[in-house]
């Protein structure tokens, strides 16, 4: 095969390859799993990826203590159990945990507020990695700061481990409200807004012109039912992370499959109704309003 013009050098870890991976997850559900068995249940239910971790957020809340990256053996066990992509969490700012996850070969790193932050001033420099990163955000400015650090995917934070969707709703609405407002602005208004958002002007201009983020936007934190997932999709999420909502429920396999179907047919109420029947108990959950401010995970990161 003629190769004079060909760049046969394989380029790994380019922005297109990192962001493209997230494009392939769109319209899908990413499920938190703590064992290889749960990972297989998730895969069989149609999950597009699993998040391997030691404790789901609801248990992290209940048990307290410092929450760190999961045991590499446990992550490797889950990677061996399934053929779909495996994600894992590193603490905010803990770039060595991220290096370890990359060395293990995980497919995506979640720099996550669900774990105890390791740095109160700096997030991880995500451009320094071949593995792509997803980061949480509560509003547009936070999303753009993470993208400017190299995040290849954003998820609205919500409030993990509560089963209360109210924060997920607030955050996805806030991110989209920010995008819509930028898209309606005149060019000379953008520098002032960039300062207000504390985000790079170049990125602000890009979002204003495109009317969307330059990376895929999922939602997370409190999704417990098929209707929750469908509402997030109608509010503009491109896919859903479900943490405690599946394996803290009465019939995880059935609920997992129902949430997958509701995410695909999010705009079809008859279908959402159909898949919502006979699911058994949803996770009990915690009302956000009962949660002391100090215990809210979404406030971690900036």
């Amino acid at each position, binding site marked *: *095969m*003629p*190769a004079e*013009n*060909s*760049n*046969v*050098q*394989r*380029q*790994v*870890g*380019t922005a*297109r*390859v990192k962001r*493209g*991976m997230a*494009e*392939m*997850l*769109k*319209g*899908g559900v990413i499920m938190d799993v703590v064992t290889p068995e749960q990972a297989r249940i998730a*895969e*069989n239910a*149609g*999950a*597009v*990826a699993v998040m391997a971790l030691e404790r789901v957020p609801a248990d992290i809340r209940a048990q307290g203590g410092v929450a760190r990256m999961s045991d590499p053996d446990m992550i490797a066990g889950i990677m061996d159990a399934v*053929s*779909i*992509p495996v994600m894992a969490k590193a603490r905010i700012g803990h770039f060595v945990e991220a290096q370890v996850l*990359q060395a293990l*070969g*995980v*497919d*995506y790193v979640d720099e996550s507020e669900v774990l105890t932050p390791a740095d109160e001033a700096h997030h991880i420099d995500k451009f320094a990695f*071949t*593995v*792509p990163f997803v980061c949480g955000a509560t509003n547009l400015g936070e999303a753009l700061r993470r993208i400017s650090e190299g995040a290849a995917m954003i998820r609205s934070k919500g409030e993990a481990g509560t089963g209360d969707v109210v924060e997920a709703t607030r955050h996805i609405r806030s991110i989209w409200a920010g995008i819509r407002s930028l898209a309606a602005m005149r060019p000379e208004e953008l520098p002032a807004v960039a300062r207000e958002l504390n985000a790079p002007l170049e990125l602000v201009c890009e979002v204003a012109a495109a009317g969307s983020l330059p990376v895929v936007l999922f939602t997370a934190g409190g999704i417990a039912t098929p209707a929750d997932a469908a509402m997030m999709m109608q509010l503009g999420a491109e896919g859903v992370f479900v943490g405690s909502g599946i394996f803290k429920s009465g019939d995880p396999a059935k609920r997992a499959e129902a949430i*997958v*179907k509701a995410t*695909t*047919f999010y705009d079809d109420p008859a279908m959402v109704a159909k898949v919502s029947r006979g699911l058994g108990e949803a996770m009990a959950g915690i009302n956000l309003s009962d949660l002391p401010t100090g215990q809210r995970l979404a406030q971690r990161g900036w």
Partner: protein
Amino acid sequence: MIGVLALQGDVREHQRALADCGMRSTLVRRREELAEVDALILPGGESTTMSRLLATFDLMQPLRARLAEGMPAYGSCAGMILLCREVLDGQPEQRQLAMLDAVVRRNAFGRQVDSFEADLDFAGLAGGPVRAVFIRAPWIEQAGLGVEVLARVPDMPAAGSAAGRIVAIRQGCVLATAFHPELTGDRRVHQLFCEMVQESSGAAQKQAPGRTQVRACR
């Protein structure tokens, strides 16, 4: 009208590519929607998820039937996997549309840290190599005699174990790539598919009315 299978995956990117080629497209998630389209793109995404949803929503049989009648189809990555006769390293339950006489290996290049982009020569496309984006991509392990090989990873030491692997094929009206042309601005692969669709509809019109449409592409 070209349909894009919209159970999951990078549906919008394919729609954008079709729009750039001047083609209208519509989403296909239900049997009724499948019946309305003249051709179908199976996007990139997670093949186990799509295979499962195709089975759950009773789309597998009708889609096989449409493809057997000669409906043109194009699959990228996960779409390629679904179209092949046999998949290696898939899930035991994974079901195939089996429209391409080829054996495909899932996640053949490795995990996401091994995902890459590179330039490829693509048979029949004028204008130089195609910039190909491979994301946890499959390759074709074995292609039948009726399958035309359109692109391979260049057979050079720099390509490592991937050297010479088949990454784009065509059989009749069915086109498949292991990579994602929908993620780059280069529309030549989608243009090729649009030409296949137009050829096919032209040939169908020449047939006597009332007859089932037979495979119209070469």
